[in-house]
């Protein structure tokens, strides 16, 4: 024992007493990371590249959702009951829609011309970084450089308790939306024609194209699906943390970590990776100051990339989901 | 014990469920021209990759005896270390530095296996300059040896298939190897180029004293060159012997008939 022993003992006590509260917060964050991570994983699956501008899809979903709430709720008192539910559904839909639109434009402008030319990988990365930089700075110009706090479409009260830890309305919403999104995504990818196309391209684009899959269309759809989830996640994130033009950077870096953790290219891996990262990060709040939480996530990223770059479930969109 | 250069014992290499090499044992003597044949997917390239440190087999041992006669265990060694130890190779689908000239391709081979000397390179000291001169001279010599002098300043992407093969051979030789591994050197070449290739490979062994390990589908070329042959099928060695023995071996004939002899020979 010694100083370190005391430190550990004290912190373990905190961990025990706070565990469930942190756990619930971690799961909520984790679901959001998972939703963003899906965008990375899908695009990686079909194009074998990391969509660096995904953070801006998330950001634009956040702003879209903000404007919906600003219009319908404004500075008035938060509504309750069915109108809350309606607003949240609307916010998710609009956030998702705008995310999908931005993703589509992005694919058209920053990726497709390069794909046509078979540009080297470095060119894709640079183009994507340029697009990301362009988008968030443009948002900064249009919406100002200060953060907006989002009007609340519901009253955030504890809905129920888990082992004595209160579960806020916000967490319930994220949980439900996340569940619906993941369930429908899983169905789309594994059961529909569209999903089969995506999986075929992911496994072997050339063969898929010979078998009559339209590559351009499949890639566009992949971006739309990833953009929808990313945009919706942006809305949900904005509900709690407000929106600002740089809001995409940190969550996207973490979502990317989640995608790698679960095995990039692997859908279920993205969800599981998101949850693991969210929970781990939340629990580590007991041991490190909040300012260093991003460092923890980054440490996980580097460790996973170095130790097991294929992630927990392994790469491969074709096999999973 | 004769003068062995490679000794492969019970090597097994897997990729997930696929077994590329299954308990393979073989050996090669110094100075020997040895061929490995077998149908498509038999594991020939995998064997080369295991010998050059590109793949790491899960089981077995591979020993390489370098210039100084000290045996070296290959498994676990990186590819560049094998190159530095004296194992040079060419690739099945030729891999050149395609935006460089023929000359530069070979020069990189000539200088890369020696120490780096960053500071010297930065300041361009006398030692560096001497080094460069030496590499240039060696490159010119090798280009002449393989008959590419005229194409020295051509961008290597503009070379014909035959010339690309010769470029790869020159680049491999530039690293001063003990043994040169050739993965289907005749693929994509025309009959006259093939004849020139047979001569060139012989000269590599006779004049430079470099041991040759060869993968080839073209039976005529194999029979003309090889002193001994191993036959691989589904990752296992199914036969070994002189060209005549192998040709007469019913097991080999069956392995090839199983996939169609014509196809294998036309490749």
């Amino acid at each position, binding site marked *: 024992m010694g100083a370190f022993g005391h430190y550990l003992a004290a912190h373990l006590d905190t961990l025990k007493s706070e565990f469930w509260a942190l756990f619930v917060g971690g799961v909520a964050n984790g679901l959001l990371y998972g939703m963003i991570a899906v965008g990375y994983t899908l695009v990686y699956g079909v194009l074998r590249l990391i969509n660096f501008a995904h953070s801006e899809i998330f950001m634009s979903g956040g702003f879209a959702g903000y404007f919906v709430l600003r219009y319908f709720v404004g500075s008035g008192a938060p509504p309750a009951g069915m109108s809350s539910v309606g607003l949240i559904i609307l916010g998710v839909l609009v956030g998702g829609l705008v995310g999908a639109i931005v993703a589509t434009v992005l694919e058209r402008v920053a990726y497709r011309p390069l794909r046509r030319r078979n540009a080297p990988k470095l060119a894709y990365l640079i183009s994507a970084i340029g697009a990301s930089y362009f988008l968030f700075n443009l948002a900064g110009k249009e919406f*100002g450089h200060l953060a907006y706090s989002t009007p609340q479409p519901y009253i955030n009260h504890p809905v129920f308790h888990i082992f004595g830890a209160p579960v806020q309305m916000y967490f319930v919403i994220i949980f439900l939306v996340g569940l619906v999104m993941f369930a429908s995504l899983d169905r789309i990818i594994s059961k529909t024609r569209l999903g089969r196309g995506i999986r075929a391209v992911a496994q072997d684009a050339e063969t898929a194209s010979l078998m009559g899959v339209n590559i351009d269309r499949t890639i566009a759809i992949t971006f739309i699906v990833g953009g929808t989830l990313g945009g919706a996640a942006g809305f949900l994130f904005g509900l709690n943390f407000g929106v600002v033009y740089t809001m995409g950077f940190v969550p996207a870096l973490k979502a990317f970590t989640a995608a790698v953790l679960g095995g990039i290219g692997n859908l279920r891996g993205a969800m599981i990776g998101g949850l693991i990262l969210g929970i781990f990060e939340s629990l580590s709040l007991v041991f490190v100051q909040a300012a260093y939480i991003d460092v923890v996530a*980054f440490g996980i990223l580097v460790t996973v990339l170095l130790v097991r770059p294929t992630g927990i479930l392994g790469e491969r969109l074709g096999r999973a989901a | 014990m004769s003068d062995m250069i490679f000794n492969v014992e019970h090597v097994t290499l897997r990729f997930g469920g696929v077994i590329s090499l299954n308990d393979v044992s073989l050996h090669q003597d110094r100075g020997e021209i040895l061929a490995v044949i077998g149908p498509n997917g038999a594991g020939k390239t995998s064997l080369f990759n295991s010998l050059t440190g590109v793949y790491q087999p899960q089981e077995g041992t591979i020993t390489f005896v370098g210039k100084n006669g000290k045996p070296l265990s290959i498994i676990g060694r990186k590819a560049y270390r094998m190159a530095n130890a004296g194992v040079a190779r060419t690739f099945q689908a030729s891999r050149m530095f395609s935006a*460089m000239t023929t000359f530069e391709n070979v*020069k990189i*081979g000539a200088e890369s296996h020696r120490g*780096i000397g960053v500071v010297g*390179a930065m300041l361009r000291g006398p030692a560096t300059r001497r080094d460069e001169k030496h590499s240039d001279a060696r490159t010119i010599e090798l280009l002449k040896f393989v008959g590419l002098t005229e194409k020295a300043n051509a*961008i290597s992407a503009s070379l014909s298939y035959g010339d690309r093969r010769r470029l790869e051979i020159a680049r491999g030789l530039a*690293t001063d190897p003990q043994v040169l591994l050739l993965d289907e050197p005749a693929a994509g070449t025309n009959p006259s180029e093939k004849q020139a290739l047979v001569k060139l490979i012989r000269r590599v062994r006779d004049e430079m004293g470099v041991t040759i390990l060869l993968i080839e589908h073209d039976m005529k070329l194999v029979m003309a060159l090889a002193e001994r042959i191993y036959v691989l099928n589904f990752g296992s060695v199914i036969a070994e012997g002189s060209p005549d023995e192998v040709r007469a071996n019913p097991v080999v004939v069956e392995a090839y008939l199983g996939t169609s002899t014509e196809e294998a020979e036309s490749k």
Partner: protein
Amino acid sequence: MRVWLTKAIVRRLLITQSIVAVIELMTGPAGSNSQPVYGFSHSFGESSSFFGLFRTQRWVTFFFVGLICWGVASFWISQGSRVRKSVHDALAFPRAATQKRPVRWGAMAVLLGFAIILPHVETAPFWQAAMVEQIAVYVLLAIGLNVVVGFAGLLDLGYVAFYAIGAYTTAWVTGALPTPALFHHALNPFFAIPVAIAIVMIAGIILGAPTLRLRGDYLAIVTLGFGEIITIFANNLYGITGGSLGSNQIPHPSIHLGPIKYIWGLAPVPYYYLALGFVVLFIIIFSLLERSRVGRAWTAIREDEVAAESVGINPLKYKVMAFAIGAASAGFAGVLTASQLIFIFPASFTLQFSINILVLVILGGMGSIAGVVFGAILIQTVTEFLFHSPPSGYQPQDLYIYLGALLVAMMIFRPSGLIPSKRRQREIRLSEAEHEGHLDEVLTGDDT
């Protein structure tokens, strides 16, 4: 007859008009938190004068500009594709490799002479300060990042970290940080130069050795994170870095070596000459390096890593080397900035910064030293111009929007930059040609 109204032409019209709309947004007035849609509505609706000729709403002006661009583009495109030609160019015999590359001593001497007299020609304090803080420093950073991105082909998005380490090292060895100085006697910044360069190079090795094993895209994201982490540490480790306020106690450099005595003070011009000296030094070292076997090994790794390994090149070693060598000039730039401004704080070392440097390299031409120097001078001069006398509606932050758009545009239209490195250009063209099958066409000769 409506033959001319083909689908492609209509599509092109739509594309041109969309681009024009984006430019309208980029150049329009800004919104703010109290008026979040002001920027949008006024970018299109605000009335503006067209070179004083007539007044109309912005969208009308832009619409017609778009039409003109569309016409020009359509004409240009109808002149035929240039792909074949570029493949031919790529395959043409370059200068014989055994021949020495002509060094344009004359041109270089003229440029250097111009750089030397420049502070006596341009005497406005704003520009004299800009020459050091905004141009010389960025040139140093660009030629360093060029070693990593251009020579070794590694995308480093956390390059600012090395600049920050250089600056903080200066503060540290001069005793300007809360933590005790490195040596017993605090050094003056002039002698911090070698120390800072050594420390950033070591940092390059420490960061590079584990991460440079990663694939290119993973490396980019890891370096991005690393740049961010450095800022987090600088911001939060009060006891060591001085937290978000940083340090404002850094002395100016001076030399006292026997008869040589010199003190740099507040005036920017002496710093300019110090920087110029190091720029020349780094340019010489880096270009010698590029033409040495080290440079050739970098090229080999970039073009085909497997083949490079097969001739005995250890890719990791050379990549780490590129990282460390590229970091050196950033380290010096850090010393220069810290000792001239005498203060440093974490907010100046952001992600934005890394990307700005990347733009300079990409615009100039990755792998081309002349290109990146030109790119850096061009962009930084324009930036300072815009900062000094902004056109109406322009805010300094708008710059980043343009830089982002520039990156995308360069990748689409001119990936090898304004003054391309011949080799890089050939690599890009060949890889593109191979894909399209143009290479085989040209090689087999049926391209008439």
